[in-house]
C-alpha cells in the first residue's frame, strides 16, 4: 500500500515539477535540485512499472488464515 501511494505521489510531484518548469516558476538556482528530485521520482515510477515484487506469499497466508477462521 505504501509503495502504491509512493509511486502515485511521485508521479504527481513529478508532474508538478514539470508544470512549474514549463510555467517558468523554477529559477536557475533551484533547477539542479529540482532536476535531481525529478530524476529520483522518475526512478520510483519506473521501478513500479517494471520491478514490483509480488506479494503472493502474503496473500496465500491471508487466504489460509481466512480458511481456518471459517472452519472454526
Amino acid at each position, binding site marked *: *500500500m505504501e509503495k*502504491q501511494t509512493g*509511486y*502515485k505521489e511521485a*508521479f504527481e510531484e*513529478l*508532474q508538478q*515539477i*514539470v508544470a512549474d*518548469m*514549463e510555467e517558468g516558476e*523554477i529559477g*536557475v538556482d533551484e*533547477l539542479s535540485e529540482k*532536476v535531481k528530485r*525529478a530524476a529520483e521520482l*522518475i526512478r520510483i*515510477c*519506473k521501478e*513500479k*512499472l*517494471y*520491478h*514490483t515484487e*509480488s*506479494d*503472493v506469499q*502474503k*496473500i496465500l497466508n*491471508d*487466504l489460509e488464515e*481466512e480458511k481456518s477462521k471459517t472452519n472454526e
Partner: protein
Amino acid sequence: MDERKIFTLGDVARSIRKTLSERYRSAYWIKAELNKLNHYKYSGHCYPDLVEKEAGKITAQMRATLWKEDYHAINRRFLDVLKEPLKDGIKILFLARISFDAVYGLSLRIIDIDPAFTLGDLEQEKQACIEKLTKEGIFDANKHLEIPLLPQRIAVISVETSKGYADFVKMIDHSPNKYRFHHHLFPSLLQGDQAVDSIIHQLRKIIKLKQHFDVVVIVRGGGGDIGLSCYNNYTLAREVALSPLPVLTGIGHATNETVVEMVAYANEITPTKLAESLIQRFHQFAQTLASLENTLVSGSMQKLQHSKEYFNHQVHMFLTHSRGIFFRHRSHLRELGLHLTRYTGFLIKNAREYMLGQQMEFIKKQAFGFFKVERDNLSYQQKYMQLKSMAIIKKASEDVNAIDRIARQLHPANVLKRGYSITRQKGKSLMSFKEVKTDHFIETTLFDGVIISKVLNTETKKQ
C-alpha cells in the same frame, strides 16, 4: 340391499378422463413459471413443475410432461434464440394438452414452448434489474471508484483451464514492454445458474483481501455464448457494483451486454482485450513519464540556455550602457573642457585686456606724470639753456668777432699778401718736395697771380 352405486377407481378415472377430453379438445397456449424442469437424463424425458405466483406466493401449481423428442427440439431453439437452455426459474409460454392418466393423474403435456416469450421476459427481468440498481443509486458505484494509476495487482475470477484465463494471463505475463503485473486466480464457475453464487463467493473472498489488490477481473472465454444470463442476475450485479475494488470484465460473448458488464468499472469484449487495456494503462503511464522526462531535460536545457542568454544579454546591456555612459560623460567632459578652454581664453583675454587697460592707464598716468616732470624740467632747462646759450652766444659772438678778425688776418689772400705762396701739382697742394718729380709742371699761387713752372731739380733742405 345396498342401494348405493359403487364405482371403481378405474371408472372414476375413465369418467374424468372422458369428461376432460370432451371438455378440452384442443391444445392451449398457457403461460407459467417453470419452477423445476426435472429433466431425467436416463430416460431423456422432463416432468416440469409449473407454478403461478402472486406477490411471491404460489397461487397455482401443476405437473407437466415434456417428452424426450419435444424437449430436444425446444431446447435447441432456446439455445438458438436465448443463448440459454431450458432451465429452472424462467417464465414460459407453452402449448399443451390437458391430459389425465389413471395412474399419474392430471398433467399438462407440453408440445411446444415459445422461446421469444421467455426472451422478452428475461429482457424484462434484465431491465427490472437495471432499474432496481439505478433506483438504489448503486448502478454506477463501481465506475465511481478510483482505479490506481497502475492496476498492477490483479485478482482474477476465472476458470483455470479456460481459454479466456489462458489468454489473459499470457498477455499480461508477456507484455511487450515487460511491464510487471501480479495476478492471483480465484477459481469460479462462470456460466449457468450456479455461477452467481460461485462468483459472489470468490468476490467476497477477494474483498476480504482487498489491500493486496488493485482490481478484480472476471474473465471467461471459449465456452460459447450459452448460459450468460447469470450476469443479468440482480444479486450478482449488486455485488459487483458495490465491490470496493474496481471490477473489470472480459466475459467474451457476442450477445447483448449483461448487467454485470454494465455496472463493472470497465468492460472489454474479450479477456485479451481486457489484458491489453491494462497494459495500455501502463503504457500510457510510461509514455507520460517519458514525455515528462523529455520535457524535464529539454526544459532544463532551455532554462539554462535562457539564463545564459539572459546573462549574456545583461552583460551586453551592461557594457553597452556603461560604454554609453562613458561616452556621454567623455563627450560631456570634452565639451566642458572645450567650453572651459574657450571660456578661460575669453576670461584670460578679458583679464589681459582689462590688465592691459589698467596698465596702460597706469603707464599713461605714470608717463603723464613723468612727462610733466620732464616737460617742466625741460622747460626749465630750456629757459636755462636759453639764458645760458644767450650768454654763450654773446660771448661766442664776441669771440667770433675776435676770431673773425684773426681769421680774416689768416685768410690765404691776406697770407699771400704777406708774401707767402701755395704750390700745387695737378691742383693738389704740395706739402713735401718728395711729391715732385723732375720735368713735372707745378703751379704756384701768389697774391696777385699764378706761376706755372717746370721742375728742374729737387733737393733736401740742408740743416
